[in-house]
């Protein structure tokens, strides 16, 4: 039968680094990816066809929906819970803000006490530090050499200097410093100089949310997956949708059943299986893989699969910079401002029952016409603008000044109300039950989100921005998904051990964001990559010692 050493399901930030490390160590690996493989030239500089809504990355909610159940009882079919189905996964269109976590993010419960389902991680920042450095080197991260103020220590400087910034960045730093905070260059997985045989960023109109046409972004298919392929031991299986992980009579994973690109059902056997389909779909695959030995889903004896789903909580605001005061250089043809503030990573007393804050990430808004026009028409919610009023606003907006925006990120608090299970009625185009996502936001999201938004608006105000506006408050950040296969030391309250290995099935691993007990106050992509490299080292050692058989 068709067989490999390790089958990896999903080719994104979790599966990609694992494929690289395992193939470099001599293992024969297959990477199964349900979506297509795009070339750089497929990432047209075309706002319409490159954005999520138009199906390059995310399947249509009529063909492969998720059922969303909100706490008010309403349900809808949605694409929430998909990140990107293509070779490279969500790293294809990531904004690539690649921060390390703060050491406190690894020990939330020890640090803050009981708050809903927050828990300590089964390892610490020190255990991940060298993998962070490896991740920064292999993806290529640009930023201040000293990294970010979040870090306790770092063993290596970032490999590239910061991206060229708009002249307003210097004014911005001064304004923050006057307010007592410290703006620093956002660490980006985007080349500021030629690096790893890829060009420096061309600072084009479309970035986050779009594929990179030049390869300047360190997406998985440009970096780790490419290195895996170059070993000659990585089998690329795109268009292959895995429907079940199968087990042998001893209760070990023996392979998977998948539909190939011609929709024919096939079987692949493997000595170890790594699941990395992002948190919602990884949980779904485990729940779909029930058997006599695992009646509640593979590795789900603890009942933890699907529990403690976390997105990232995001809020956002913006203002208009007009070419006066200290901003004479506003028209400079540079789109990148790229400054972050983490002075509010911990909240003062009285803001929320949990004293954990987050990140403010500022940037000039890139001139992407359709998205911007839709936003200023107010089509997000309420009654939108149309007719002459819309036309006048379009023209004023685009021809006068520049927009500066910021995004707030903070922890999405794991709770019993936010989880994934299988929908009892709705099936996808393959005839498989779809994931049902229950969402309930705890008060902290609103309190912390509001307080952090106010800090951001305060900075914009001091910068002289006009028309300050809150764009969103305590929303679900749809591109960063965690939880559902919690890692921990206690087998009854977690599904995975500290190396993302199933407590019950020793040759089964989950290596995307699913393992995270808590989701931190910064984007999580770099941590998923670093954790994947750490897991890979463990798999190599255990496989060589014969412990996975």
């Amino acid at each position, binding site marked *: 039968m068709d067989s490999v050493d390790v089958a990896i399901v999903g080719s994104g930030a979790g599966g990609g680094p694992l494929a690289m490390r395992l193939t470099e160590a001599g293992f024969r690996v297959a990477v199964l990816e349900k979506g297509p493989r795009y070339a750089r030239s497929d990432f047209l*500089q*075309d706002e*319409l066809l490159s954005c999520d*809504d138009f199906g390059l990355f995310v399947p249509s909610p009529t063909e492969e929906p998720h059922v969303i159940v909100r706490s008010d009882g309403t349900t809808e079919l949605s694409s929430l819970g998909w990140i990107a189905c293509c070779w490279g996964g969500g790293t294809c269109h990531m904004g690539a803000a690649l921060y390390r976590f703060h050491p406190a993010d690894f020990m939330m419960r020890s640090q803050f006490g009981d708050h809903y389902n927050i828990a300590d991680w089964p390892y610490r920042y020190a255990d991940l530090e060298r993998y962070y450095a490896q991740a920064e080197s292999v993806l290529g991260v640009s930023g201040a050499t000293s990294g970010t103020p979040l870090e306790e220590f770092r063993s290596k400087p970032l490999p590239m200097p910061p991206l060229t910034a708009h002249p307003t960045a210097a004014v911005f730093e001064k304004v923050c410093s006057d307010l007592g905070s410290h703006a620093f260059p956002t660490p980006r997985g985007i080349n500021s100089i030629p690096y790893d*045989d890829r060009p420096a960023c061309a600072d084009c109109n479309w970035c986050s949310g779009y594929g990179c046409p030049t390869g300047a972004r360190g997406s998985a298919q440009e970096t780790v997956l*490419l290195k895996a392929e170059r070993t000659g031991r990585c089998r690329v299986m795109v268009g292959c949708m895995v429907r079940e992980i199968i087990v042998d009579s001893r209760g070990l994973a023996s392979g998977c059943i998948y539909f190939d690109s011609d929709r024919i059902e096939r079987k692949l056997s493997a000595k170890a299986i790594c699941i990395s389909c992002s948190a919602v779909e990884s949980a779904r695959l485990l729940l779909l893989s029930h058997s006599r030995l695992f009646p509640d889903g593979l590795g789900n004896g603890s009942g933890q699969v699907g529990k403690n789903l976390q997105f990232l909580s995001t809020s956002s605001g913006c203002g208009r910079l007009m070419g006066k005061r200290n901003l004479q250089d506003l028209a400079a043809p540079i789109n990148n401002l790229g400054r972050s503030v983490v002075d509010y990573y911990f909240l003062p007393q009285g803001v929320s029952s949990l004293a954990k804050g987050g990140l403010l990430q500022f940037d000039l808004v890139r*001139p992407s016409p359709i998205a911007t*026009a839709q936003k200023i028409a107010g089509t997000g919610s309420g009654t939108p603008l149309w007719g002459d009023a819309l036309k006048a606003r379009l023209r004023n907006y685009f021809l006068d000044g520049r927009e500066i925006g910021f995004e707030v990120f903070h922890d999405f608090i794991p709770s019993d109300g936010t989880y994934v299970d299988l929908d009892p009625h709705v099936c996808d185009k393959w005839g498989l039950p779809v994931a049902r996502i229950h969402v309930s936001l705890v008060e902290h999201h609103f309190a912390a989100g509001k307080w952090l938004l106010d800090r951001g608006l305060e900075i914009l105000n001091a910068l002289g921005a006009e028309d300050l506006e809150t764009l969103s408050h305590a929303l679900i950040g749809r591109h960063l998904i965690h939880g559902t296969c919690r890692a921990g030391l206690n087998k009854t309250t977690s599904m995975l051990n500290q190396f993302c290995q199933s407590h019950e099935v020793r040759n089964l691993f989950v290596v995307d964001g699913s393992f995270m007990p808590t989701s931190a106050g910064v984007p999580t992509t770099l941590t998923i990559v670093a954790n994947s490299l750490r897991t890979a080292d463990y798999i190599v050692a255990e496989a060589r010692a014969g412990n996975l058989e």
Partner: protein
Amino acid sequence: MRGLAERILPSDQSVGAEEAGLITYVDWVVRQPFFAHRVDQLIAGIEFLDSIANHLWQRPFRDCSSDEQDVAIRTLAELASPPCHRFLRCVINMTLAGFLCDPKYGGNLNKVGWTYIGFERRVVQICDRNG
């Protein structure tokens, strides 16, 4: 749909939906698989606009004058009805996408939309590489 798009971005002293070839874009977009889940919503909304127009002027929306069409849209917008607002948002989003998209999809004819807002596409060098 043509009348509706032309009310959302009217052609007066400056270019609007008509000059941008909006209807060519709409023809294309409603046939795309990614749009399939919105088609019913769109049809229902247009039927509802027709019923407003029929009620007020005894003729369908498309046969109404621009001013009458504006009144019909305003009537729909002022209803405290989430489906009506969703419909209106969907149509506005679609019109703006058609006004400002890459001209190869039929809209933004001769880049009139981009010219209107002063947008210039920054073209970058693409060099594919093989594994």
